[in-house]
């Protein structure tokens, strides 16, 4: 078929004229708000900072808030011994310190992720029995545990997670949310100060290494950055926690 000259113009003009009468796509945002699903939280993304380190601090808040439990994350402690949650292998504690140094300029000790000491599990067993291993009564369980031990030992939390089936991330989130729950015994102040001193030295070393690498290569890479990842997977099966699986 011989193309008629001007036919394309006519086609295009008719298209725009049809568009002219069609309903519009704009939403007048502050006045009109589109109906989003109740549990919609926007788009999930893992961001890297300018040193090439993940910005995620593994605070588990996103995993805890995720309504369809599609966020799955995990990490290990500094020495690679304590597995917080299953997922991509990750030196959580190390990165956490790094992030804390970078963001606040001081080390922020977190007793919950130190290598935990063995505890007498009798009180926990009794408490769990009393609350019927019900993860929905987690706050009461945690309060009772703190009453029994004076604080929340990591071993007890670990055990609670194992017995109730609740993710450790959720228990940790619950425990950090309430101010009256604490991870260290009230008398542990001097110890904390001592660790703070130790970490001050590590902070200086870290900053020096960072400066050296920035000045030397100029590639903007952290000397130790790049090997840490946080796994995020869609559609991981909800329900039983890692300890049970």
């Amino acid at each position, binding site marked *: 078929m011989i193309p008629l000259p001007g036919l394309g*113009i006519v086609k*295009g*003009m008719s298209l*725009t*004229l049809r*568009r*002219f009468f069609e309903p*519009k*796509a*704009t939403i007048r945002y502050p006045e009109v708000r589109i109906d989003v699903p109740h549990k919609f939280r926007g788009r999930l993304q893992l961001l890297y900072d300018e040193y090439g380190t993940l910005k995620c601090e593994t605070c588990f808040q996103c995993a805890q808030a995720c309504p369809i439990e599609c966020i799955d994350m995990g990490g290990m402690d500094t020495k690679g011994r304590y597995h917080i949650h299953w997922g991509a292998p990750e030196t959580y504690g190390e990165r956490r310190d790094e992030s804390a140094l970078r963001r606040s300029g001081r080390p922020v000790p977190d007793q919950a992720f130190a290598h935990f000491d063995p505890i007498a599990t009798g009180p926990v067993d009794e408490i769990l029995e009393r609350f019927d291993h019900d993860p929905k009564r987690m706050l009461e369980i945690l309060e009772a545990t703190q009453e029994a031990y004076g604080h929340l030992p990591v071993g007890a939390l670990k055990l609670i997670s194992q017995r109730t089936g609740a993710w450790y991330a959720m228990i940790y989130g619950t425990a950090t949310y309430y101010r009256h729950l604490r991870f260290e015994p009230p008398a542990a102040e001097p110890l904390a100060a001592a660790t703070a001193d130790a970490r001050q030295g590590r902070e200086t070393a870290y900053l020096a290494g960072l400066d050296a690498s920035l000045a030397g290569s100029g590639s903007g890479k952290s000397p130790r950055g790049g090997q840490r990842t946080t796994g995020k997977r869609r559609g991981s099966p909800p329900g039983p926690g890692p300890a049970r699986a």
Partner: protein
Amino acid sequence: MTAVARSWNRLTLAGKIIFTLIPILIVLTVGLLAVILILGKPIVDFLAANLWLVRFVVAATAVLLMSVPTAFLIIYMEMKVIALMNLRIGPDRVGPFGSLLSVVHGLKVLMKEDFSPTGADRLVFTLAPIAVFMATIMTLLVIPFAPGLFGADMNIGLLYLFSVSGLTVVGLLMAGWSSFNKYSLLGGLRSAAQVISYEIPLTLSVVGLLLLAGTMSLNQIVLQQGPHLVNGAATGGWFTDWFVFRQPLGALIFFIAATAEANRTPFDLTEADSEIVAGFATEYSGMRFGFFFFAEYVNVFVISALFVTLFFGGWNAPFPWPWPVNLALDPGSLGIGLLILIAVVPVIGTLILAAPFFVARSSMPAWQALVIGFVLFNLLAVVAIGGWAFISLDWVAGLLWFLGKSYVFVFTFVWMRGTLPRVRIDQLMGFAWKWLLPASLLNLFVTAAAIVIVGPRA
């Protein structure tokens, strides 16, 4: 501190302004009265003897005044129509449906710094936007808006229009040259090349029409497309009399060339706002830049109005219209009753129109009902008076037809801008010289041959 200073300081800002203005106003009023009393007779005599002067002043003022809302309306149309075609909403914040946004744009442009680059030729730099603006505004003077409503009915109206609008090129070149910027100069030269190239097919495309019409007066051309007297009785008046049906090729060429002449898409290479900076207007800012834009949008209206005038019957209705209908209304016959009517009818009308709302909804307070009634009464009055004017004054109906047809083509220009991509500069030039010019010459020769064979009014 003296007593005078103390009293002055106690005044508010508005009070200070009024206190200063009142004596000035008094002096001015007295002076004006004195001038009228002493020199009134000679002035009136002089004006009566030189009515063209009055006509010129009134027409120039009217044209300048009408250019402002026209440009604002077209700028608003441009924003809104293209937005609607892009499935957007477009301006919707200022005024009803965002219609005052172009006013805000105008204020913004007014408040910007009046900047001229180092090394620029200040005088020419300042005069260039004025030249462009004046060339556009002056073309409005010969366009017949309605029966009897035009600035001047020149017998060379069309020639005047083409020559004056050709002065735009001078303004563009001035702008490009005086900016002291090689890109501005290139832009100015490019726009000059484009505008001059398209002047030729534009002018040649209407020569065939001039042969048919036998006159260059735009008013006469419009009259020839309307009902004409045959043996004392008005006949015709259908849209088939329009020149577009006798000069279809001429109308097409005119439309394409006019698009290029008005720097509209797809021929808006002069300032291709999505590709180059702004061509000749690169160095312009503030109100000087605003004048270029103003001129451009008024030019869109002028081109549409000219197209309607030449090819689409001007202010003629597309069907025989029994105007003016002489309604035998003589308000003066009411005597003193007229005054009473003027005083009483708005009140009664407002009350009558407010009553249904007040009665129907018990939750509505009386003042709300009264406001609704007042607004309704005003609407009714406007509709009644407008309808009466439309029926019995032929220039009102003619003006409405003319503006309606013109804005159809303004809409078409905007529509084209929302649709068509921009052509390349060599395509632009090649199209003008290789296609439009031969086509307009063909149109001219065919028309001339037809007139020789058949006669001027077939």
